[in-house]
C-alpha cells in the first residue's frame, strides 16, 4: 500500500496508465449497469472485478522500472513527514547521530592520517630507521654514532641509500630583522636521495656540500618559504644568516613534503620530550662532517639514521647485515675506547613509519575503539527508541498492513526513516568533524606525529558513508524486523496496550539494553583506569614541590655570550636582581626546564671502580638555592653554596649514589665525568624532575659555573601570584641583558599540568564518552521499563487485586531490568579486562585489573540503573487495581 501518489516523473506515462484503467472501469461499469444494476452498484461491481487499483498501478509502475527511484524519493518524503510528527525523537536522534558520526569521523581521520596512510615519500614502505644498542648504555635503542653509520654506508649492501640527520634549533636572521629560533634538520647531502624527494624550486644538496669545511647551504620547506619570502620564486641564491655565518638558499621543497619533528623521530628515545623537538623542521641544512674526528664509542642519541632498503630486501636481512658490521666495528675500535666483547654494540632496523608513530599507536586505537563503542551504544539506543516507536505505532502498521500494504514496504519505510536520519546526521557529522579537526590541528593538546598531514580525505569519506549505512541498518532494521512478525489481525483485534506487549519484542529490547550496558561498562571501566592513572600522576610523590614557584626562561644569543665568563656574569647579576625583588624568598637557576624531559645525559663512573657498562645519567647545572627553591630533600652531605664556585663538586641523587656506592657513604668520593674528576659533596632525594611518567631518573647536579648554559631557567619562590611578579622578573633579566630572549614566565604548577596534557586530554575525552554512554544506557533502561509498565498495566492491576504489595511490584519492575544489567555488567567487565591489558602501557601506577575502579564503576552503574528504573517502577506501583480492572 502506498499512501499518497508518487510524484510522476514522466507525467504522460502516469496519466496514460490512469486513463487506461479509468477507461476499463467505466466500460465495465457500463456493461454491469446494462445487466440491470444501479450506477452505484455497477461501479462497485466493476471495482470488485478489477481488484485493488492502487496495487495494480504500483505493480505496473514497477514494470516500468524507473519507479525505484520514485519509490525511494517518496519513501524519504514519507519518512520526513513521519519524523516531523515526532520532532522530539527526530531532534534527539539527529543530534546523537551528528555527534556520533562527527566524533568517529574526526577520530578516524586522525587514525588514518597518522597510522594507516603511508608516509608521503616515494615507496615509503622501504624507508627504515636504524638504531644502535650499545651495551655501555644498558642496551637501549638510541640514535647511532655517525661514525658507525658512515661505516655501515660503506659496507652494507642491503640499502640503496643510508644517511643520518640531526634536529636542531638555531637562531636565524633573514635580512635585518631580529633573530628568531627555528627548528632545522642538519644532514649529509644524500638525505633527499634517500627520501627520493624532488625540490619545487632549485635543487637539493650536491655531494661537495658534504665535504668537511664546505660552506653549508640550506633548502627551505614550503611553509617557511611562504611565510618569510612570501613565495618569492627568486629566493634561490639569496642568503640567510645564523649569527654571522651566511647560508645560501639552494632549493625549496614542495608543499606536500612533510618531515617528522624531533619529538616524532627521537634520536634519544627515553621518555619525555626531546630537546628542540616540538615543531616540524622549517629548513634543511647541509652538514659537512668529518666523522673520523668523532668519538669511536660515544655521540649516541644525537643523530637519527635513515635508510632505504633495496627492493626485495627484508628488514630482518638488513638488520642481520648491520649487526655483522657492528661486530667488525667493535673489533676495529681502539682498545682504549670500547668494550671488545662481541655483542657489545648491537643495532636494530625499524620501518620508518613505525619509528615515527611508535607510542601513539595504542592511544589512537584506544580513542578509535572508544568512539566506535560510543557510536554503537548510540545506535542501540536509537534502535531501542525506534523499537518503542514501532510498538506504539504497531496499530498504525497493522491498519496499513490490513489495508494491503506489503510488509516489505513497511520495513523499508522504517529503514528509510533511519536512512534519512543517518544521512542528515552524517552530513552534519562530517561538517562537524572537519571543523573540529581544524581546531585540533591548530590547538592540539597532544603531541601527535604527522599532525600536519591530518585532513579529511576520500578514505575518511568512505568511512563516514559506511558508518552512516551501518547506523541506519542497525537502528532501522531491528525495529523493522520486529514489524515483520506482527500479525495485523492480532494487532487490530487487541487493545492498543496489549498489542504493545508481545513478550518477544520486550525480550529483544532487553537484550539491546544488555549490550548497551556491556559497552557502557567497558567504556566506564577504561575511563576509570585512565582517571585513576591521571590522579596517580598528579598525586604521586614527585620529590620536589611545584607550588608557589615561578619559572622564567631566558635565552642568550651564542654570538654575544660566547665566553663562559659572560654567561656566569649574566646569571650572577640576574640572580642578584631577582633576590632584590620584594616578596621573593628564594631565587635560583637551573639548566633545564623541570618536567620537560631529558636534556643533558652523560655516564658517571666511580674513579676507584670503573665499569664498562654505565647508564647515562641526567645532568643539571644549578645555582645555590636550587634545592631550597624546589624543596628537595637532603639525604647526606650538603647543598651547593657560594664556595662551590668553579670547584669540581657534584651532588648525586639518592638512586645514583646507591647505584655507585651501595650502602657506603659517597660523600667525599670521586667520580669521572667526561674525563674529569668530581668530588661528591651531597646526596639529595630522588625526584621526577624530567617527567612525571617515568620513575625518578638517576641525577647528577653540578654548580652552574662549571658549564654555564645558554638558556637559563630561573626559579623564583614567592607567595605572590605570577601576574604581579612577572614584570619585575622580566625587568630583573633585561636590566642586565636587554638582548636576552625571555621565552616564558609561568608557574611551575602550570608547567606540571602542561606536561600531562596528553593524559589530561585522553582522560577528559574518555570521561565525556563515558558520561555520554552512561546517560544513553540510563535512557535505554528507562525507555524499556516504561514501555513494559504500560504494557503490563492490566497484569499489574490483577496482581495487586490478588494481594501483591507495592514493594513486590517494585521488585517485579526492577527485576525486569535486572538480568540484562547484570549480564551486561559482567560482559563489560570481561571486555575491559581484555582492553586493560592492551592499554597497560598508557597507564601509570594502575594495573589493568583494579579493584577500586571495578567497584566504583559497578556501584556507579547500579545506582544509575536503579535511578533509571525508579520512575517506571513507581508508576507501576501506583497502578490502581480498580481502574485497570474496570478498563478490562
Amino acid at each position, binding site marked *: 500500500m502506498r499512501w499518497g501518489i508518487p510524484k510522476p516523473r514522466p507525467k504522460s506515462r502516469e496519466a*496514460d*496508465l490512469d*486513463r*487506461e*484503467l479509468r*477507461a*476499463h472501469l467505466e*466500460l*465495465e461499469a457500463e456493461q454491469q449497469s446494462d445487466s440491470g444494476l444501479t450506477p452505484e452498484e455497477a461501479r462497485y461491481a466493476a471495482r*470488485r*472485478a*478489477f*481488484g*485493488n*487499483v492502487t*496495487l*495494480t498501478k504500483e*505493480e*505496473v509502475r*514497477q*514494470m*516500468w*522500472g524507473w519507479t525505484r527511484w520514485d519509490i525511494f524519493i517518496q519513501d524519504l518524503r514519507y519518512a520526513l513527514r513521519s519524523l516531523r510528527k515526532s520532532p522530539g525523537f527526530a531532534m534527539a536522534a539527529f543530534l546523537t547521530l551528528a555527534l556520533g558520526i562527527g566524533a568517529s569521523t574526526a577520530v578516524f581521520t586522525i587514525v588514518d592520517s597518522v597510522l594507516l596512510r603511508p608516509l608521503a615519500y616515494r615507496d615509503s614502505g622501504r624507508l627504515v630507521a636504524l638504531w644502535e644498542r650499545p651495551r655501555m648504555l644498558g642496551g637501549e635503542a638510541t640514535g647511532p654514532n655517525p661514525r658507525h653509520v658512515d661505516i655501515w654506508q660503506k659496507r652494507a649492501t642491503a640499502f640503496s641509500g643510508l644517511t643520518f640527520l640531526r634536529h636542531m634549533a638555531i637562531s636565524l636572521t633573514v635580512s635585518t630583522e631580529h633573530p628568531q629560533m627555528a627548528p632545522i634538520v642538519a644532514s649529509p647531502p644524500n638525505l633527499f636521495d634517500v627520501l627520493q624527494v624532488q625540490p619545487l624550486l632549485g635543487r637539493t644538496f650536491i655531494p661537495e656540500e658534504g665535504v668537511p669545511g664546505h660552506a653549508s647551504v640550506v633548502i627551505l620547506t614550503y611553509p617557511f618559504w611562504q611565510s618569510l619570502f612570501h613565495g618569492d620564486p627568486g629566493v634561490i641564491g639569496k642568503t640567510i644568516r645564523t649569527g654571522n655565518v651566511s647560508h645560501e638558499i639552494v632549493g625549496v621543497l614542495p608543499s606536500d613534503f612533510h618531515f617528522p619533528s624531533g619529538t616524532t623521530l627521537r634520536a634519544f628515545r627515553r621518555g619525555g620530550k626531546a630537546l628542540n623537538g616540538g615543531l616540524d623542521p622549517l629548513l634543511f641544512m647541509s652538514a659537512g662532517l668529518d666523522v673520523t674526528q668523532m668519538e669511536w664509542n660515544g655521540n649516541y642519541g644525537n643523530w637519527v639514521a635513515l635508510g632505504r632498503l633495496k627492493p626485495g630486501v627484508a628488514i630482518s636481512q638488513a638488520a642481520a647485515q648491520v649487526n655483522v658490521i657492528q661486530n667488525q666495528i667493535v673489533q676495529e675500535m681502539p682498545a682504549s675506547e670500547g668494550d671488545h666483547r662481541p655483542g657489545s654494540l648491537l643495532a636494530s632496523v625499524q620501518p620508518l613509519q613505525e619509528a615515527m608513530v611508535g607510542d601513539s599507536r595504542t592511544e589512537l586505537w584506544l580513542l578509535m575503539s572508544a568512539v566506535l563503542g560510543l557510536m554503537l551504544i548510540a545506535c542501540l539506543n536509537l534502535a531501542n527508541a525506534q523499537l518503542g516507536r514501532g510498538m506504539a505505532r504497531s496499530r498504525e502498521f497493522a491498519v496499513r498492513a490490513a489495508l494491503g500494504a506489503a510488509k516489505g514496504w513497511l520495513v523499508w519505510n522504517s529503514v528509510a526513516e533511519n536512512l534519512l536520519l543517518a544521512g542528515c546526521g552524517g552530513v552534519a557529522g562530517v561538517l562537524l568533524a572537519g571543523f573540529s579537526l581544524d581546531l585540533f590541528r591548530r590547538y592540539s593538546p597532544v603531541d601527535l606525529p604527522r599532525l600536519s598531514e591530518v585532513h579529511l580525505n576520500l578514505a575518511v569519506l568512505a568511512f563516514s558513508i559506511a558508518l552512516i549505512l551501518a547506523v541506519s541498518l542497525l537502528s532501522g532494521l531491528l525495529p523493522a524486523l520486529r514489524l515483520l512478525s506482527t500479525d495485523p489481525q492480532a494487532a487490530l483485534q487487541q487493545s492498543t496496550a496489549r498489542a504493545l506487549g508481545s513478550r518477544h519484542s520486550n525480550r529483544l529490547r532487553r537484550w539491546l539494553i544488555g549490550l548497551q550496558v556491556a559497552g557502557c561498562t567497558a567504556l566506564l571501566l577504561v575511563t576509570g583506569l585512565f582517571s585513576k592513572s591521571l590522579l596517580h600522576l598528579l598525586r604521586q610523590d614527585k620529590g620536589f614541590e611545584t607550588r608557589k614557584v615561578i619559572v622564567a626562561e631566558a635565552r642568550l644569543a651564542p654570538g654575544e655570550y660566547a665566553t663562559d665568563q659572560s654567561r656566569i656574569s649574566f646569571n650572577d647579576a640576574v640572580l642578584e636582581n631577582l633576590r632584590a625583588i620584594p616578596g621573593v624568598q628564594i631565587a635560583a637557576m637551573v639548566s633545564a626546564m623541570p618536567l620537560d624531559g631529558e636534556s643533558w645525559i652523560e655516564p658517571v663512573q666511580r674513579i676507584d671502580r670503573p665499569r664498562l657498562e654505565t647508564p647515562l645519567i641526567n645532568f643539571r647545572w644549578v645555582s645555590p638555592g636550587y634545592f631550597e627553591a624546589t624543596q628537595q630533600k637532603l639525604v647526606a652531605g650538603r647543598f651547593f653554596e657560594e664556595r662551590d664556585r668553579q670547584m669540581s663538586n657534584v651532588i648525586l641523587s639518592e638512586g645514583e649514589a646507591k647505584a655507585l656506592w651501595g650502602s657506603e657513604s659517597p660523600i667525599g668520593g670521586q667520580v669521572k665525568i667526561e674525563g674529569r674528576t668530581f668530588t661528591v659533596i651531597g646526596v639529595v632525594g630522588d625526584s621526577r624532575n624530567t617527567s612525571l611518567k617515568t620513575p625518578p631518573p638517576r641525577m647528577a647536579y653540578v654548580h652552574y659555573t662549571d658549564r654555564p648554559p645558554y638558556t637559563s631557567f630561573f626559579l623564583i619562590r614567592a607567595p605572590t601570584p605570577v601576574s604581579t611578579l612577572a614584570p619585575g622578573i622580566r625587568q630583573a633579566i633585561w636590566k642586565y641583558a636587554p638582548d636576552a630572549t625571555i621565552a616564558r614566565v609561568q608557574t611551575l604548577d602550570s608547567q606540571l599540568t602542561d606536561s600531562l596534557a596528553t593524559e589530561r586530554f585522553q582522560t577528559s575525552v574518555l570521561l565525556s564518552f563515558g558520561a555520554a554512554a552512561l546517560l544513553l544506557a540510563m535512557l535505554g533502561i528507562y525507555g524499556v521499563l516504561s514501555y513494559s509498565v504500560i504494557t503490563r498495566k492490566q497484569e499489574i492491576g490483577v496482581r495487586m487485586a490478588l494481594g501483591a504489595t507495592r514493594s513486590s511490584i517494585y521488585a517485579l519492575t526492577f527485576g525486569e531490568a535486572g538480568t540484562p544489567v547484570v549480564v551486561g555488567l559482567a560482559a563489560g567487565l570481561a571486555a575491559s579486562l581484555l582492553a586493560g591489558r592492551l592499554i597497560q602501557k598508557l597507564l601509570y601506577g594502575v594495573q589493568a585489573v583494579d579493584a577500586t575502579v571495578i567497584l566504583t564503576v559497578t556501584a556507579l552503574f547500579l545506582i544509575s540503573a536503579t535511578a533509571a528504573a525508579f520512575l517506571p517502577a513507581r508508576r507501576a506501583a501506583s497502578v490502581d487495581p480498580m481502574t485497570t480492572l474496570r478498563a478490562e
Partner: protein
Amino acid sequence: MPNEPSDRIQLLQGTLDMLILRTLLLGPAHGHQIAKHIQRTTDDLLQIEHGSLYPALHRLERKGWLAAKWEPAGKDLKREFKYYRLTAAGKKQLLAEESKWKKLTAAVARIMWPVEES
C-alpha cells in the same frame, strides 16, 4: 473477495502471459476486451482479477512482444481505448510458450492417467 464461487480455478503462474498473447492473435484488443474474452471463452472458469492483467500487459509491452496505441473504440468515436497488438517477436514467443505448455500438460497427463502397457 467475498463470496467467490468456489469452483473457479486460480490461474497457474506464468500462464497469463500466454493467454494474453493467444487472445491477441485474433486481432488488436484493449485490456477490458482481453479480460472479457478470457472469461467468456472459459465460461468464467478462470478467475482473473481484471487488475492483474495490466502489469502483465505492460510487462509484455516492455519486452517488445506487444505494441500499444490509443485508438477510438469501433462504434463510439468519442471514446478512446489503449489497444494492444501482437508484434512479430510476440508471435514467436507465443509459439515457444505454446510448445512448452504442451510438453507440460503431456507430462502431467502421463502421471495422472497412465496408459496401460500392452
